[in-house]
């Protein structure tokens, strides 16, 4: 089976109502199934060593990579960001007279509290969810923050 034949099969599936197609050959197995959004999903295993260059099948719509609560995004090597998991007001310390939870140089682990985000009168402690050293606080005390907004720049490790 060569690339041309596989392309033909994909075209056939797109034009028809076929939901699944499978074929087995010597040292080669191919299965194509309609994905959740109706586009064919190709999976193949090959016993041979020839690296298959799959045709760039139509990709499902690339939505913005969902940032789950508190997880970080990679920037330069080893640099990650702590992002806001909610909408509210950002506070660096537990109270106006307390020391900030995290400053430049503070070492944090996954469960270290780095700040407070106040939403509807409730103070929510936000955990780092990453291990490393705080490089910079990106938001000023008392500023409103939105979901996914970068709060701290962290050097991982």
């Amino acid at each position, binding site marked *: 089976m060569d690339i041309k034949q596989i392309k033909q099969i994909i075209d056939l599936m797109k034009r028809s*109502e076929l939901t699944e197609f499978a074929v087995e050959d010597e040292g080669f197995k191919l299965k194509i199934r309609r994905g959740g959004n109706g586009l064919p999903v190709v999976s193949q295993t090959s016993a041979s060593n020839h690296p298959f260059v799959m045709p760039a099948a139509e990709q499902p719509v690339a939505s913005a990579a969902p940032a789950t609560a508190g997880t970080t995004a990679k920037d330069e090597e080893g640099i990650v960001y702590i992002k806001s998991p909610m909408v509210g007001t950002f506070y660096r310390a537990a109270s106006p007279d307390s020391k900030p939870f995290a400053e430049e140089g503070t070492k944090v682990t996954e469960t270290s509290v780095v700040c407070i985000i106040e939403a509807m009168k409730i103070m929510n402690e936000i955990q780092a969810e990453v291990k490393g050293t705080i490089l910079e606080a990106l938001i000023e005390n008392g500023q409103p923050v939105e979901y996914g907004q970068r709060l701290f720049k962290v050097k991982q490790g």
Partner: protein
Amino acid sequence: MIQKILIANRGEIALRIVRACRELGIKTLAVYSEADVQSLHVQLADEAICIGGPRSSDSYLRADRIISAAEIADVDAIHPGYGFLSENAKFAEQCESCNIKFIGPKSCSIKMMGDKAIAKETVKKAGVPTVPGSDGPVDTETEAVKVARKIGYPVIIKAVAGGGGRGMRIAHNDVTFAKEYHSARNEAEKAFGNGAVYIEKYIEKPRHIEFQILADSHGKILHLGERDCSVQRRHQKLIEESPSPFLTPDLRKKMGKASIKAATAANYENAGTIEYLVDAKGNFYFIEMNTRIQVEHPVTEEVTGIDLIKQQIRVANGEKLEFDQSDIKFEKHAIECRINAEDPARNFIPSPGTIGLYYAPGGHGVRVDSHAYSGYTIPSHYDSMIGKLICYGRDRKTALERTYRALSEYLIRGIKTTIPLHKAIMSDPVFIEGKATTAYMEEFMNRTPPDLFT
């Protein structure tokens, strides 16, 4: 005095609300998910706050984040649009307790009309005709036959625990009733583990006709005429028009009066819609009340000349409605086509993706409510409606021809849409003659070759 509104919605209705606010000099705050960063209304609103990930459950349905955003941005009111939290009584209550004006009815009205059984009882007491039926489950054949005869055949026997069109049987007379009754019970027992059934009058090939209500907080309740939404596929509306080609002036008056009675019984404020099924003889039956602004509101706007979103905001602001029932004139005929990113030739499979060329029609009597634009990527996380085409003219013939003309100019390249389907319907004799009932779409699809939709 409302000076800033948070729009708790997305897509074309969010854009609609931004436009109304602009014209009223009110500031707008768009709350959006990460999938809607490039959405038109987010770009056009005065402020924007991201409230979550792409999934609705992680963003547009997060009442806590929305209210949080409302507080940090210091808004006076929230417009919930349609869908999402618009008919969530708890959300409306939360707004009320946070001193943020919810642009819609009171939370108690939402609660009352949200329970279909309570809604039916409430309007029935007010003298509004409802679908005749047994008051609750019917447990013996003798009792069931009595009820069926009282209601009048044909009747539909429905499972109390049912849904999705299952556990329903239709009986046309005494002879077949017993058999259908027992079959329905058995099916219900097997499918839902509960064999209890109730009986309702079966309305054959009804038309779906709804009335627009507008009420202020000073006791004035008006109706703004009807919309005929019979062209539906799997209970999803595709085309709406006003006036209904079926209603006589007399029936319109009767149904209008009934609608005001229903809204009064619900203690209603702001915009809402009363939905009815109408049979071939002109008998109408209340099925439900929608306590929000609806997708098809532009149809009524073009027929009456009244801006419903602006009126919603004014009512929320405590203002009195400036006009009376006698001032409302039905001067145009309007037809709306819902443009969905779906492929009608392949069973309406959703067709998300990036729009290449987008060119919307224009000219006399053409209105396009859409958030789409060239290069816009339709997210796959939400419903498939990308816009509405509303065409209007002095009579139905003009509206029909104009709709066909506008659809012919409407270019949306790169994805599949329902534009060809709408064109086919506009040319179909049954629809042209105004004979479409809720049975129309299935019948039309059965006799129309799929390549007419490409």
